[in-house]
């Protein structure tokens, strides 16, 4: 028999009433999202894993402060964003992401220039390589907007920036990303789409 999924709020209530194991469910739901944001901002797998752990522990300790006036994911992202930003600032030396593919090689893509054809490994690496050239803040904006499909208002709540600032930041990040992808197969497909 199918069970109705338990809401985040119910799980939080369970955790607060002493059933810490209920937190596992929240971890299952959000671990990939938080890890993705951390890795996009920090560009270091080990550091991103450590940061993700810290974020979940921090969120657990602050769970009593969750008022429910926003979605749990927004609240969690707020903690994740600021913690990852702190970690980024603390790093004196960022390890460079070693992509086997540089942006210069993008013209050598596959033979299937369709949008469905973008879903291959090479194109994924092209996109990651371009994303890695953005700053941590730009990366977070792009990730939240395109990857997590959050609204400007939600991003504003998470980052603490005003909505117009988010909009401008996103616009700049998009332009930079487009510029980096231009000349590649992905970029030419973007241009075709815009026509």
């Amino acid at each position, binding site marked *: 028999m199918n069970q109705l999924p338990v809401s985040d709020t119910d799980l939080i209530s369970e955790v607060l009433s002493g059933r810490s194991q209920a937190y596992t469910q929240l*971890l299952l739901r959000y671990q990939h999202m938080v890890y993705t944001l951390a890795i996009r901002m920090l560009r270091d797998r080990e550091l991103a894993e450590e940061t993700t752990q810290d974020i979940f522990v921090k969120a657990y*300790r602050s769970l*009593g402060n969750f008022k429910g006036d926003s979605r749990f994911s927004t609240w969690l992202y707020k903690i994740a964003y600021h913690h990852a930003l702190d970690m980024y600032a603390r790093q004196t030396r960022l390890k460079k992401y070693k992509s086997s593919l540089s942006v210069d090689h993008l013209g050598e893509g596959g033979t299937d220039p369709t949008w469905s054809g973008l879903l291959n490994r090479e194109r*994924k690496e092209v996109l990651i390589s371009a994303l890695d050239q953005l700053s941590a803040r730009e990366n977070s904006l792009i990730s939240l907007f395109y990857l997590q499909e959050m609204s400007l208002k939600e991003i504003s709540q998470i980052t603490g920036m005003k909505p117009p600032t988010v909009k401008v930041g*996103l616009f700049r990040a998009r332009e930079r990303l487009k510029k980096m992808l231009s000349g590649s197969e992905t970029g030419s497909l973007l241009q075709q789409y815009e026509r």
Partner: protein
Amino acid sequence: MNAKDSLRELPWESVSEKAPEGLIQKVMSRIEIEPLTTIYRAPLIPLKAWVLIGAGLIFLCLQALFWNDVADEKAGILTPVSQWLENISFQLPEFYTVPDALWIGMLAFGFFGWLQLYWMKSRLSRQGL
């Protein structure tokens, strides 16, 4: 964002990362070491300090009102503490005899108090606490 946002067509789901194996266990083991309890955070300024600050302010106010030479213009001397009650006056001009330094001090105290609360609130809010 514009209606025709070409970036939306990028394979965003493919850049989504999977959290490493064992992440949940690691987090849960850290949590189980420190079970969730209401964490008491001692205030930066303890109650005793606030009482002392308050008492200091009240003393300054009283001193300014009843124990300054302006308050006892006729005698031209400092009003002794024992004559406080005799000097209590609700006449409006009395308030104008309060030294400027007191007003400035109170304004400065209020401003810095507000500044501290504002700074703490924004800092804690940024950390999601």
